[in-house]
């Protein structure tokens, strides 16, 4: 449906435009500026063109960080999406427990991200953390500060705990909108629970699953606060994701040029992968273009 053109609406948009310009566009242009220049100090810059970009793209440090991000996102998606669907399927659709479940699911999403990191940091400590101490009592050698595997497992579980609810809530919304008649027809057809899931629930959740997938991918790929607070990128650089590496370079080492270049490349990678995902997922299962309905 097309909306009728109303020029006055543009006036309402001006405040937002100013805000976005100040908080986003100008800083981004600054970054672009830095990414093509170098300095010997004393605030004097000179043009180096694409030198930083080629440096970054060739650096092993960059490739390693990128690899960690891809691995992390892959694991997160493999766990959170099926888990989210499963929880959504198990939630009641009617009755008094519905609001209770929904609130419980929403709680982890409301916690500020650095607080999440802090919670798990303390939780995992061997001396005062519940998890760390219990692991010690069970005789399991658990230390996320100097064991790479433990650090990764902790970060993954922390993210799952934090964000699966988003997938759950999205899938639940999709499930609740399926008319009862479909389930009735499936019962009459003698369909098993798996068939009902595969042929009715999953197809009808396609729209919300695409959104859930994209959101989780983007957020997990750009993750910063939680692992930073938890491990600071360690042990060594085993949990140094692209975002953390970026900050280290820009603020820690004050290498503005390469950091700026890396941040632009990072952004482009995210955009590219999202675009591919979205195009592929929207077209899966569509065999011929639907005829536009003349209403």
């Amino acid at each position, binding site marked *: *449906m*097309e909306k*009728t*053109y109303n020029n006055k609406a543009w006036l309402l948009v001006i405040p937002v435009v100013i805000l976005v310009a100040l908080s986003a566009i100008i800083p981004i242009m600054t970054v672009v500026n830095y990414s093509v220049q170098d300095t010997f100090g004393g605030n004097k810059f000179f043009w180096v063109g694409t030198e930083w970009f080629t440096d970054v793209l060739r650096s092993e440090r960059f490739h390693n960080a990128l690899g960690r991000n891809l691995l992390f996102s892959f694991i997160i998606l493999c766990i959170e999406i099926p888990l989210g669907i499963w929880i959504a399927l198990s939630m009641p659709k009617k009755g008094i427990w519905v609001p209770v479940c929904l609130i419980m699911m929403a709680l982890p999403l409301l916690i500020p991200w650095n607080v999440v990191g802090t919670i798990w940091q303390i939780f995992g400590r061997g001396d005062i953390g519940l998890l760390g101490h219990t692991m010690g009592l069970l005789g399991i050698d658990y230390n996320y500060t100097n064991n790479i595997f433990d650090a990764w497992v902790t970060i993954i579980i922390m993210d799952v705990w934090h964000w699966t609810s988003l997938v759950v809530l999205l899938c639940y919304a999709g499930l609740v909108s399926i008319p009862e008649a479909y389930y009735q027809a499936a019962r009459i057809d003698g369909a098993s629970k798996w068939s009902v899931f595969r042929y009715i629930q999953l197809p009808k959740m396609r729209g919300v699953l695409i959104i859930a997938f994209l959101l989780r991918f983007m957020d997990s790929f750009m993750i910063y606060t939680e692992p930073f607070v938890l491990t600071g990128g360690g042990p060594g650089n085993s949990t140094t994701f692209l975002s953390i590496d970026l900050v280290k370079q820009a603020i820690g080492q004050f290498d503005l040029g390469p950091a700026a270049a890396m941040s632009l490349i990072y952004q482009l990678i995210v955009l590219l992968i999202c675009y591919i995902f979205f195009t592929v997922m929207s077209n899966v299962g569509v065999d011929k273009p639907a*005829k*536009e*309905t*003349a*209403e």
Partner: protein
Amino acid sequence: MLELRNLSKKVGTSIHINDVSMKLEKGSLNVLLGSTLSGKTSLMRLMAGLDKPTSGEILMDGESVLKTPVQKRNIAMVYQQFINYPGFTVYENIASPMRVAGIDKKTIDIKVREAADLMKLTPYLDRGVLNLSGGQQQRTALARALVKGAELVLLDEPLANLDYKLREELRIELPRIFAETGAIFIYATTEPQEALLLGGRTATLHEGCVTQFGTTIDVYNKPSNLETAQTFSDPPMNVIPMQKQGSKFVFSQGQVDCPKDLQSLADGPYSIGIRPHHLMLSPSNEASHKIEAPVSTTEIAGSETFIHVLQGDLKLVVLTHGVHRVEIGDQISIYMNPSKFFIFDEHDVLVSAPRTEGVA
């Protein structure tokens, strides 16, 4: 008067509305008749201003309204799904357009009660609108359209979700109520019977084009082409492809004499349309041409019977009075009356229609 000039609407590569031109007079009742995807709703949305046309003009009393946003136009629209403000009572629903226009409370009260009275909603004024039955909710939507005193009232299949009998009742009330307001009344429907019962003028739509626009009974009796004839037929018209050879029409099951006044038609292929109730089970002076065919199905509807026959590739439906018990497979004789033929040429354009008897 509302005038549409060469109105077209394209979305991507599909054409929703194709070169429509119509003139709608004040106080007239106009029916848009067509199947589900024919473009009725698209056309109504263009008339209301909810969509912009790709090309063409819409003029209200001579002035173009294309640039006027829909909120400024004086229109009212009622939909198939009873659309009301869910949080409001019936009273508040009916009052809402007037409240938005800033009319004083006293006038609002008088008008709301007037409209509620016309729609028989007075005992329900204080009820939450979602607690009412379907018919009552739709009446509320209609009352809300009524109080606006709009110049253009658009009803998009408003009775489709209602019970059969309720539909009959409202169908009689609606035109009467809206005629008194002097508005241009546009009613979209898929059912030919409804168009006939409403009267007024009818525009038949097919794939985005208006195939014919005229007095309803004229469009019914003289459809300008085959699409119009089939859109405006319930039950569907029987269509038999025939070849005219001299003074006879030849078809797969035999031949029929050509009526005298049609003998001057050129020889060649034609499509002959004949309505189910013009096929007879017994011969008469006019209905003399016989076809023998086996029965494939019968349906008894109260005091009428539909008999379907299938002979080779010829499928016919006969509608007769009374209850006729025939078995499937029985051979029956059907008599055709050539003076009741609708003759369409090879481009599906009407060449001849049966003469209609005068009505006192």
